[in-house]
């Protein structure tokens, strides 16, 4: 083992030597400079591996041959080793990245940078309080100089503000040190801690500790004493900002970690508050931010606030503290450094200008990695860390903190994903991105490290051990082979899905089997149209595969964490998928906002459940009693964001309508079922937990969702939006049917899930292909396409008959089951609403098929041909399935009924041949014989068709304007196409039901956040003096609060 003192020696020695070495030529100097940093990195890594692999114990290193308190001592333990490895490696990458910047400023810059690294290493290693001061000052001065080398005005003024703030902080630090010293007589931290806890109450000691800790906290840039820090992030060179945000913040966090044991309980509590406050407020302020580096600054500060919170909650977190802390820290460290570096490469002042990297998939990939890592999506370390954090907080009843952390996380999602949306979706920019290799390599490395760290850190948690990373690895491979042409990747993905299904399916029970089939078959069916795409379709296959990996993960999940992990993978994948649509920027954003919000609610719910039962299994939800209502509401709301129940639905129409043609069926027919699956798991688990009132409410929610979804769909002019609203309504039926909680109700729900999957995939595929071909979503711009696209027409015809519930197709089964279910349950009025909304569906279904296929054809579509065969193949596969299911539903329903019989014994369906019937008190209630009905209808249809064809065999086939038009003719096809605002009379009568109240409500909420963000961020008015006042006021304010004994 190399004594860590050599780290300091090497850095210091090199710092002094470099100027003289420089005489040998700049190349030698630079080589030695890098060799030095590599050497210290190697030393720290050597220690790290010693701790991790060989299980070495922490060691104390004494300087000058004395033991403390006579001398300064360093401590090298696992934490220190991790941190200095991180810091030194980060600094190495930073040096590579900033090399050009250093070169412009000559040898001095290299020296200063060495000192900078030295300071941080010292901060981590030392156990002497005054030494902390010294190293802090070394770090700070080095930072000032590094900032000041950039002679731009903003850099200088930011540097000046930083120095003033740093000066005040160091004054406080000194004051704190001397006050504590005067009472404890030692500068050694361990001695001090022992002495302080022994000393009892003493005002001087109290003030000393307070002021010491607050000076560290100020250096950590907490709210509100952080106006200067934002200017620094914005003003200075990105390489330096990266270092400040990543490495020096890491060192300072560890300082806080070291000195916090000095603090009293009240003071610790206050730091907790300050941390959370910083996390919330920074993210709130960030949402109005347009400047790249300042936004990153806000984000940094927010993350550090969260870390401060974690450090201050160390006692609560117990054994898991280190994992949580490092999970969050490493994510922040790597992602934020990467983002700052990327920002330096892209050189975009405003976040909107980042659109110029649109054509650079690798940059986009790295950017996506970073923001996902920041937000805590799988597989990054922050996910498991946040998960554990919330779990443990819930165990301690800290619901307020959980709520605030969730709120801030959602705000973070808002601005980071909005930014991501800008990159992919704004108008192309002419500007070129230069990609200097030496600057890119560090970014590549941190990207890679994030995945590696994600794997190891996730698995270091108990919960994370059960995660199956193999499918994710497949997604990773898809990213790597993205340069291949579409047909190879498409085939590969389909084979993979089939193979996975082949492995997975045999071991599943009926319920999971059904959903697995929906996901897997849905996957295969919706991938088929991919063959029609030419070129490479960069980015599509990895994210689509990611979504399916998440979906299948849900099926496989046994524990809360597995479920949540899969849920987040699915959310991320589907978000990227939706974002691929042409005009989907804002819709994808609202999708991810609702999804993330829903996911956090689920997290909260799981945490509460875990807190009460202590179990991590999904089935343990049934044992929740104290928090039952709360858990149920949270989880149900979480899942209902995915099923887009009314109130939480506003993301769906845009997201589904603006997605690509073959993505719409993926997200509408398949993805929504994930929410249904979640609800089913929840309902099964919590059916006996005294939440029946909530089922009742959910029943109403489902009914209202169904009605309003269908009504709004009737007033759409956009074909895909119409289908999207229809999905909302269909999911409303499913929610209603589930909430009934009887056997036949659940049969209806399952039947709806299956059939909705089929006919909505069918409709979205057919309509999507047409939209793709016609390049318009507007139904009134279509018309008369039956003659050009008869195959698509048949698809849509079958689709709408099935959806409408007209016998003999499968949709009627759902209606019949639902009628039986709600009447037997006694939910008459909800049921009447459901029945009414089922009828309203006819309006939009007619509008859909008429506006697209019937009526006069428009001039520009006269040469239109049938859509791509790759879109037709899945459609006809679905039609075949629908036909079979329509006549023989017993195949599925009987098994499902038996499966649910143990869980829900009430109101079962009895099968007799192909006929289903329900009974009340042994007397026949309802009866339905799908096979017979199918035969009767088909025979009748054939006979009548034969008769009519014979009777009108001599009929003249006429053209579209051969109509009786009051003895005139229409002016143009457009005038004869009655499509726009088709149900205006209906709107006149019932339009009051579809006032956009929900949209207005959410608009109000977002406006509220944005305007308050815009209002309160004026707090940072740019004046250094005001910042001084913030700092002093911050200290004084909290001093009085603390002294006043409020806590």
């Amino acid at each position, binding site marked *: 083992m190399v004594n860590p003192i050599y780290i300091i020696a090497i850095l210091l020695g090199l710092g002094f030597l470099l100027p003289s070495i420089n005489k040998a030529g700049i190349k030698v100097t630079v080589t030695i400079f890098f060799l030095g940093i590599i050497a210290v990195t190697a030393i720290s890594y050597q220690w790290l591996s010693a701790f991790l692999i060989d299980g070495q114990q922490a060691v104390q290193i004494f300087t000058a041959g004395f033991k403390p308190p006579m001398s300064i001592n360093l401590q090298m333990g696992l934490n220190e080793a991790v941190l200095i490895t991180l810091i030194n490696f980060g600094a190495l990458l930073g040096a590579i990245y900033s090399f050009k910047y250093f070169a412009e400023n000559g040898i001095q810059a290299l020296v200063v940078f060495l000192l900078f690294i030295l300071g941080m290493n010292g901060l981590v290693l030392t156990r002497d309080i*005054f030494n902390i*001061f*010294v190293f802090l*000052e070394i770090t*700070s*001065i080095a930072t*000032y*100089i590094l900032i*000041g080398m950039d*002679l731009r*005005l*903003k850099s*200088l*003024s*930011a*540097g*000046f*503000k930083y*120095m*003033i703030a*740093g*000066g*005040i902080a*160091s*004054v406080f630090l*000194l*004051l704190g*040190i*001397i*006050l504590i*010293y*005067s009472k404890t007589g030692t*500068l050694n931290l361990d001695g001090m801690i022992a002495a302080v806890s022994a000393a009892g109450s003493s005002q001087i000691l109290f003030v000393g500790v307070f002021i010491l800790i607050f000076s560290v906290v100020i250096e950590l840039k907490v709210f509100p004493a952080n106006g200067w820090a*934002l*200017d620094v992030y*914005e*003003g200075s060179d990105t390489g330096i900002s990266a270092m400040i945000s990543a490495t020096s913040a890491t060192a300072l966090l560890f300082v806080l970690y070291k000195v916090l044991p000095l603090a009293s309980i009240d003071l610790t509590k206050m730091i907790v508050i300050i941390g959370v406050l910083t996390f919330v407020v920074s993210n709130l302020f960030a949402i*109005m*931010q347009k400047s790249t580096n*300042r936004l990153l600054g806000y984000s940094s500060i927010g993350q550090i606030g969260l870390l401060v919170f974690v450090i201050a909650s160390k006692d609560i977190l117990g054994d898991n503290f280190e994992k949580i802390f490092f999970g969050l820290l490493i994510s922040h460290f790597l992602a934020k450094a990467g983002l700052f570096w990327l920002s330096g490469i892209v050189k975009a002042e405003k976040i909107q200008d980042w659109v110029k990297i649109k054509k650079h998939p690798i940059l986009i990939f790295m950017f996506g990695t970073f923001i996902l890592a920041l937000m805590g999506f799988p597989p990054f370390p922050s996910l498991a860390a946040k998960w554990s954090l919330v779990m443990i907080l819930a165990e301690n009843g800290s619901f307020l903190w959980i709520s605030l952390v969730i709120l801030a996380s959602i705000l973070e999602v808002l601005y980071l994903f909005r930014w991501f949306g800008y990159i992919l979706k704004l108008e192309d920019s002419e500007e070129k991105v230069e990609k200097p290799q030496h600057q890119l390599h560090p970014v590549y490395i941190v990207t890679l490290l994030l995945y590696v760290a994600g794997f190891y850190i996730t698995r270091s948690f108990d919960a994370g051990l059960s995660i199956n990373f193999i499918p994710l690895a497949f997604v990773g491979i898809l990213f790597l082979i993205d340069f291949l042409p579409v047909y190879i990747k498409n085939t590969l993905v389909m084979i993979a899905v089939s193979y996975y299904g082949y492995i997975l399916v045999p071991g599943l029970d009926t319920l999971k089997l059904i959903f697995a089939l929906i996901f897997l078959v849905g996957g295969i069916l919706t991938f088929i149209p991919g063959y029609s795409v030419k070129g490479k379709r960069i980015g599509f296959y990895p994210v689509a595969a990611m979504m399916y990996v998440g979906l299948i993960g849900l099926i496989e999940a046994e524990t809360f964490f597995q479920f949540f992990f899969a849920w987040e993978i699915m959310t991320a994948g589907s978000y990227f998928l939706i974002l691929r649509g042409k005009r989907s920027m804002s819709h994808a954003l609202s999708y991810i906002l609702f999804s993330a919000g829903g996911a956090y609610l689920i997290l909260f719910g799981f945490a509460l459940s875990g807190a009460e039962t202590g179990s991590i299994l999904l089935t343990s939800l049934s044992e929740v009693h104290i928090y039952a209502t709360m858990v149920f509401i949270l989880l149900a709301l979480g899942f209902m964001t995915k099923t887009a129940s009314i109130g939480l639905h506003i993301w769906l129409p845009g997201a589904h309508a603006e997605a690509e043609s073959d993505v719409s069926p993926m997200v509408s027919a398949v993805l929504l079922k994930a929410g249904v699956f979640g609800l089913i798991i929840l309902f099964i688990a919590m059916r006996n937990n005294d939440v029946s009132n909530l089922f009742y409410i959910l029943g109403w929610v489902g009914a209202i969702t169904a009605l309003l979804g269908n009504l709004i769909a009737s007033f759409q002019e956009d074909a895909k939006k119409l289908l999207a609203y229809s999905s909302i309504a269909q999911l409303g039926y499913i929610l209603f049917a589930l909430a009934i909680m009887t056997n036949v109700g659940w049969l209806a729900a399952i039947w709806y899930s299956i059939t909705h999957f089929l006919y909505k995939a069918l409709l979205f595929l057919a309509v999507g292909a047409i939209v793709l071909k016609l390049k318009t979503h507007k139904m009134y711009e279509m018309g008369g396409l039956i003659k050009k696209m008869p195959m698509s027409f048949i698809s849509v015809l079958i689709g709408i008959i099935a959806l409408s519930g007209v016998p003999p197709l499968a949709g009627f089964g759902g209606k019949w089951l639902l009628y039986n279910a709600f009447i037997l349950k006694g939910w008459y009025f909800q049921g009447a609403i459901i029945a009414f909304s089922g009828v309203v569906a006819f309006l939009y279904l007619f509008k859909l098929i008429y506006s697209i296929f019937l009526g006069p054809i428009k001039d520009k579509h006269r040469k239109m041909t049938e859509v791509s065969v790759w879109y037709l193949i899945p459609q006809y596969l679905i039609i075949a399935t629908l036909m079979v299911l329509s006549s023989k539903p017993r195949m599925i329903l009987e098994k499902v009924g038996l499966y649910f019989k143990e869980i829900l014994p009430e109101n079962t369906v009895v099968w007799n041949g192909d006929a289903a019937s329900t009974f009340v008190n042994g007397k026949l209630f309802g009866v339905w014989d799908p096979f017979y009905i199918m035969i009767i209808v088909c025979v009748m249809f054939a006979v009548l068709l034969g008769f009519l064809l014979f009777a009108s065999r001599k009929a003249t086939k006429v053209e579209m304007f051969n109509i009786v038009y009051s003895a005139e003719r229409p002016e143009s096809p457009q005038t004869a196409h009655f499509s726009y605002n088709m149900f205006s009379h209906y709107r006149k009568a019932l339009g009051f039901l579809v006032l956009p109240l929900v949209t207005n409500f959410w608009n109000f909420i977002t406006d509220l956040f944005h305007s308050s963000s815009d209002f309160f*961020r*004026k707090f*940072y*008015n*740019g*004046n*250094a*003096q005001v910042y*001084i*006042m913030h700092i*002093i006021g911050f200290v004084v304010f909290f001093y009085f609060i603390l002294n006043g004994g409020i806590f």
Partner: protein
Amino acid sequence: MNITTIVHITGFALILIGFWGMLTQKNMIKIILGLAIVETGVQLVMVAFGFIDGRTAPILDSAVELSKASSLIVDPVPQALVLTAIVIGVAVNALMLTFVIRLYQQKKSLSINDYKDLKW
């Protein structure tokens, strides 16, 4: 009122004066001076904490008998700290002044109010 108390009071007064100066003066040089005054105040306070009435400076020369040194001299640690703090303070102040010069070169103004471009 002994000497320690006087130095303490002076030190804290200087800190307050320094802060007052930093908060009220618009001229950046004066703000730096304010910070310098605060630092001086802190240094005084530190020295005062280490001072023990009737003892001498912790310099081991002929005036102090080596064997009894620990009972003759004042606490040496604060003195060492103050020395370090002074050195660092000077360095920081010098650096700040260079920043001010650079800023002045660019905008020909010393008023802190003129450097508010970065905000919100």
